[in-house]
């Protein structure tokens, strides 16, 4: 009798413990899911802002090219069809997302001296308060902001990977040019930059789905 009673008590204890453990397990899973969702949201947000800014910069670069062409006088269409050397490549390289993001950052940074040069050249060619200079400044500022965002994003997404600096050393700028060459150079820089932005926008969209989905999968697998 006593043994039976003891068994009964033990059985009840075991049942209660199992229920409690089940409840705790459910709570843990749920909270993990919430954390995962939150992390996923952070991932998407981290990619979202650079993507939005890229679109904005792209839009403004399109308008800038129009304004540039309009302000360069006759044959402005021809300027942009001439090929110029030492202009950064608009194509993003790398296979891994981290490599591609690093490539994006590097390319954006590579345009910095070119924009500076174009602005200087156009300051000489345009009246001081021309719309072209204003827009050029704006696009240049966007480039700077975009670089900062990409950098920030990279460090958020890949906190343990250092962002590699451009391997080729300092950007090579063209030698002193005549007006025509300046106009051609400016247009090619802007056009190439626009292409780069277009590529970045596409890449970020792809990366967003890749990185954030991968993380989601990783989170799912871990449970």
């Amino acid at each position, binding site marked *: 009798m006593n043994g039976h009673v003891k068994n009964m008590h033990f059985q009840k204890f075991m049942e209660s413990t199992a229920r409690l453990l089940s409840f705790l397990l459910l709570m843990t899973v749920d909270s993990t899911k919430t954390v995962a969702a939150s992390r996923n949201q952070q991932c998407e947000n981290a990619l979202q802002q650079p993507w939005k800014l890229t679109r*904005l910069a792209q839009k403004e670069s399109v308008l800038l090219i129009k304004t540039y062409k309009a302000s360069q006088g006759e044959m402005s269409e021809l300027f942009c069809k001439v090929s110029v050397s030492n202009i950064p490549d608009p194509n993003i390289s790398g296979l891994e997302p981290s490599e591609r993001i690093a490539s994006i950052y590097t390319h954006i940074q590579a345009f910095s001296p070119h924009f500076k040069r174009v602005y200087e050249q156009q300051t000489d060619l345009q009246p001081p308060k021309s719309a072209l200079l204003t827009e050029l400044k*704006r696009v240049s500022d966007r480039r700077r902001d975009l670089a*900062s965002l990409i950098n920030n994003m990279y460090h958020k997404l890949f906190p343990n990977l250092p962002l590699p600096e451009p391997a080729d050393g300092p950007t090579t700028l063209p030698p002193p040019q005549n007006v025509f060459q300046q106009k051609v150079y400016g247009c090619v820089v802007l056009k190439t930059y626009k292409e780069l932005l277009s590529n970045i926008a596409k890449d970020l969209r792809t990366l967003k789905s890749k990185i954030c989905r991968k993380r989601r999968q990783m989170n799912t697998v871990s449970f």
Partner: protein
Amino acid sequence: MVSARLFQLFGLACLASLFLARDEDNNYLVTAPQNPFLEIGTNFTATCMITNTAEVTVDDLYWNLSKTTVSKEHYIKINRTTLNVTVPIINEEPGWLHCLCNKKSPDVVLNKSKFMGGIWLRKGYRPEKPENLSCIAVQEKTYISPTISCEWKAVGRQTNEIPTTYWLIVKGMNENKYNTSTPNNRAQVSFDTYPNFMPLEIWVEAHNKLGTAESEHLKNEANFFVKTNPPSEVKAYSEKGFPLSLFINWTHPIDTVYVKLMYQIRFCPLGSHNWTYVPLADTDKYIQSYRLQKLIPDTVYTTQVRCKNHLKDYGYWSNWSTNATERTSECRPSSKPDLWKTTIENGITERYVQLICKEPQLSNGRISRFDVRINNKKDEFKNGSWESIPVNKSKSDSSSNQRGIMKLKKIFLPDKQSVKACVTASNSVGTSPEACLVISAKPHEHTPVKELKVWPHGDRLHLEWNIPNNTAVSEYVIEWISDIHMDWQRENRTTRHTTIKGNLERFVCYNVSVYPIYMRQIGKPARKEAYLEQGAPLQGPSVELNGYPGHDVAEVMWKEIPRKIRRGFITEYKIFYTNGTKIQVVTVPANTTSCFLKSLSANTRYDVWIEASTIRGSAKGSNHSFTTLKYESIEGTVVGVSIGFLFLVLMVILLCIYKKDVIEDNFWPRIPNPGESTIGNWSPDCHLTTEIPKEHCLSGISVLDVGVCDAKHGFDEDKASLSLKKDKYLSEEHSSGIGGSSCMSSPRQSVSDSDEGADMVDTTASTVQYSSVVASSGYKGQTPSSQPQHSIFSRSESTQPLLDSEENPDMLVQEGSQHFQRFPRRSRFTQGSESKDATGCTQLDDEQPDFCPFEEDTEQTTLPDSPSTDVSPAAPISSYMPQRGGYRPQ
């Protein structure tokens, strides 16, 4: 604390050493710290050190704070030459803390300024953390402005001595900082380009000499602070066949690459400000159009749209867009027209009823006509024919929310006849349901509502009433009428309190009626007058006098002020009147239109005016002036009559004085005493001189005794004398009279003759005939000659007027009497005969001895007291003997 004290002492030592190094002109007392900034509410410790002298010790020192000596309890003696003091900083006023010496030695007294040190205390508060920081970046053209504006609430106090400066700091990515300082609670920071999608950190730092405080940091994406322009080109479109909806579209104010927007839409009927908001869940998207639904047909709607960042709690709502106004398409009227009537009683037995109508509440389009049908009760309200009444109303009229009143038809309604009027309203799409009203034979047979109250509250007139005894009321009609406007509204049967929903004007009197409606039959109304708002009358009443003023009272009267300018219920009238020195007031109730002004001064000019008052003020009417009478009217009459009478008496007296003779002649003619009369007898041998009677002999009476036979002659002679009268004064022979010179004068004309001679001849006609010369016909026109004749002339010398019989010769003829009598003169004759009998007789005796006895006898026989047997009894008694014949035949 200890280290601070040590530092202070060290500083003081340095200062002292500096002073020691200088010449003897320096102060002997050195204070520290110099020019401190002190926080109000804390304690401040200062040090005073004696340098370069042994004249005084710390025991001789004392501290003054703002000219008040600090109690020694607050002193701390550091050593023989150093004295500390600790004082509380309690107020904002800056002031001096002085270290002074109270030793009275000659050196100290002479160098008082050297034994003094001071500290200028500047007081203030520590800055506190600014609160409620908010920043905004607005759209500029197609971009976001590079300037971000922030404002915050400054917390805590500051003094002029220690002001607070605020720094607005905006930190971007990569430690880019933008800042600006201001003493105010708002500032702006400008970027080169607005950093869309970049994280920003914004905060405010409050700085002053006492410290720094930092607000909360706003850490957000730059678009969090964006406020865009409102949507542009907002347009609304109505769609045929969809009378309940409007299609709205607009243009995004900014490209979506800058800010992705969501929208909010609101709408209301034109003129109303009761906006209806479209649920945000329907429009919180990046949309460019929306279809409003469940609208009222044929109604103009105003629509507005606004936008903000589509992310929740991001950005600010833009301002509302400009209005997009459009009318929904038409639909069949879905409610009844509002039928009502006005009645014009025309005598007792007949009425004119004017049917009036408002468009249906849900007219759903422009009402183009009303159809009216009138049915008599005798036809059991059936079989009437519809009469169409077109509505001439422009589109613009119909756009107003105010439903106009349409006069439909005027019905002449004999008493004791009921009609039922039914009306429908039609628009271009269809016809409304029917509205009917029964105008009963006995319009007031249904009981009115009880205890109707009307009062203004706010900008509305409120009504309250109790149900009538008969509770079968189906609805109530509230009617309000002013001088120029009438309107009505309907309330359901359960309503006991309502407000008039029409547009009422201030200062206008409204006659508010509540009609209970019993199954379409109109009950007896309850009425009240009310003002939405009362004001002072625009003008007071004009006053005028009722009749003439008395000598101490006057009645003034006035008319009620016209309703148009009354502007309120008159509470009282004040009648002001003044005689130029004192203004007196009489207050009378509002229902009075006249008043007696009493206790006025006599013969005084008064100005009177009236002030009409309402609860909101009063207005003065025009002045009226009057002058009170000097006397009471009865007094005036008496005085006037008295003066008139006195004047009359005076005039009479004057007249009497000036016309004494005339009056005397007229009223008291000088009648010669018959007793002094003499009868002149003369015969042809009488000398003419004897004919001139003496004055004193004329008063006697001469009586001629003529024979009966002479009567005829006498008669003839009278006739002849008439002709002579016509030819008066043709010859001297005709003139005769008392004292006259001619014995040939006519018997009728001799009266005027007198002693005054021929000058008086002209007046003969007006003089009274006193006597006649009686002569025989044989002597007419003859001049007595000196030859002796037997004819005897006799005449009376009396001035007595002829008696009636003499003046009426006809009578004489008829009577044929020989006697004349004149009773009124009888006494005088009698008197004369009595008083002067002797004298006269004497004279007569002397001059006419032959006749005298005879005359005496005759005269005596004519006295009325002694009737004569010779005279006919019927003949009047005369004191004169009839003078016939005049002269005896010679």
